[in-house]
């Protein structure tokens, strides 16, 4: 089944690429948030809230990609 094998390969590569993108995005976000809360410890609560929201938005896009790859893999 070469076609099925390629589909699984595509799903695996796609899942990995999506994770790279999402991980990079959330990593940058967390780094900036840490830096900001280090500079201004008073604003810790606000920074954490907006960080979680932004992380959720990034993660949402990543999860769209992961859902597509899992549909590919299970077809």
């Amino acid at each position, binding site marked *: *089944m070469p076609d*099925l*094998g390629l589909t*699984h*390969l595509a*799903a*695996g590569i796609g*899942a*990995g690429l*999506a*994770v790279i993108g999402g991980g990079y995005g959330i990593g940058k976000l967390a780094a900036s948030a840490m830096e900001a809360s280090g500079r201004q410890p008073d604003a810790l*609560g606000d920074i954490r*809230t907006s960080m*979680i*929201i932004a992380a*959720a*938005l990034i*993660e*949402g896009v990543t*999860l*769209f990609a*992961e*859902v597509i*790859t*899992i549909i590919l*893999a*299970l077809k």
Partner: protein
Amino acid sequence: MFSSALIDSAGHAASASNAIADTARVLTAASSAASTNDVSNGSWIIDHVADSHVLEFQPFGEIHLPQFPPVHIGGLVVDLSLTKHIVMIWFAMLLLLIFVRAAMRSYRKNELVPRGFANAVEVIVLFVRDDIVVGAIGEEGKKLLPYFLTLFFFVLFCNLVGLIPYTSTPTGNINVTAALAIIAFFVIQASGIVNHGLVGYFKGLVPPNIPLFVIPVMIIVELLGLFTKPFALCVRLFANMSAGHIVIFSLIGLIFIFHSIFIAPISIAFAVFISLLEILIGFIQAYIFTMLTALFVGLAIHQH
């Protein structure tokens, strides 16, 4: 989620490279397991997370849920049979009822100082009120507080109920999260329309003082945005909740794929770690669902 795809691709890669010399003994073990039991096609993962009409209590047996004939409403055929996830929603509701009733009892006895359960519930209620609703919407958001509290506690209990043995996560079913997202959609639109009027709300969707030629594009983008926001809410919760369970299930499944008892300690250690992570994710996703709904309501109420 991605680990399941990795297992699949590993199995197929191994069967393809059988002709080539066997460098990796592990991979051949995986491929032989795939050919004998057919565990690597991924259907067992879907069987685990998908909805079904059977409540499994292995090794004690299983309960077949009652089935009803489909109801015809107009041209629609609606199957109202009980499924695993519906029973789990009821279970979550029952737990929530017991939890909140226990908290209420403490307030009846001594009116001012909460004790026991009431303390825990009060912390969460105050967090939802002050940090989520008032933080994202403002003081007028307190009118919507019952909705947000219901949403938060329902999503939280649905997320956590799947971690009890023999249960499954109702929020890992896209129909449940879609229903929550549809309710959120109507709450967002209704709060906007109540505050600005029907015409004012839709006029206010397009930001003022923009060049004339951008307006047609903005109208399309904003109208699409009305629907993509709840859609993202729905998929985010569904994907997060089913992803964790697929990862746990795949880690346990590694033992059966490799046919080796030596994999078990590693598998179980990772599965315990992911299970603990799931508790955290259950709270975070309930918070994010409520927070984003509140944020969208706030955007609809305070346009610009």
